[in-house]
């Protein structure tokens, strides 16, 4: 792994692993399970 520098951000690259079925993807707002991060209202 490359050395991390100071004074900048790093964002990991998203791997293309699998897709939600189309119906679910639209409902959830993403086709990528690894990007699905729903809002849990009780967290506030």
């Amino acid at each position, binding site marked *: 792994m490359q050395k991390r520098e100071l004074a*900048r*951000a*790093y*964002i990991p*690259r*998203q791997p293309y692993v699998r897709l939600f079925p189309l119906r679910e993807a*639209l*409902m*959830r*707002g*993403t086709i*990528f399970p690894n*990007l*699905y*991060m*729903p*809002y849990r*209202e009780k967290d*506030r």
Partner: protein
Amino acid sequence: MWIYEKKLQYPVKIKNKDVRMAKWIIEQYGGADGELAAALRYLTQRYTMPTGKSKALLTDIGTEELAHLEIIAAMVYQLMKDATIEEIKEAGLAEYYADHDKALFYVNAAGNPFTVTYIQAKGDPITDLYEDMAAEQKARSTYEWLINLTDDPCVKDPLRFLREREVVHFQRFGEALMDVYEYQNSKKFY
């Protein structure tokens, strides 16, 4: 060049009017962290992005934000449809009505008009991409507050959709940032 498709990106089928909610949701129409701000920001920053990939991404996300603006407009339109003057007064929207009737206008929930001071295009692509990442987080938070303000699933569903889009956009801008850093570093060696 822009082409318009006569369909919403996500369906909006609101059954019950709610003028107060319309007043709050308009925050994402003309507000600082709303969809108009996002669209204008990305669509103007794209001209000075350094790579084909970043120009494409800013163009495409900017275009998607216009589609989101349309969803917000549809929500406000349907929430206000058939609202009576009494309901409008009670919801605290009389000042807006006095100016606009039920027209959609670019203001935030407090009634402040939209201003381009909400956005920036610094010209340095690294700077611009950090601004874009921050913008997506601010929009995500705003959607969470809006989700908290309603119990109606017909309203919550599109808001959840729009919120998740911000999460995805953040990842995309982050990846573009990594790419632009690498691109700039690769140009330092000769």
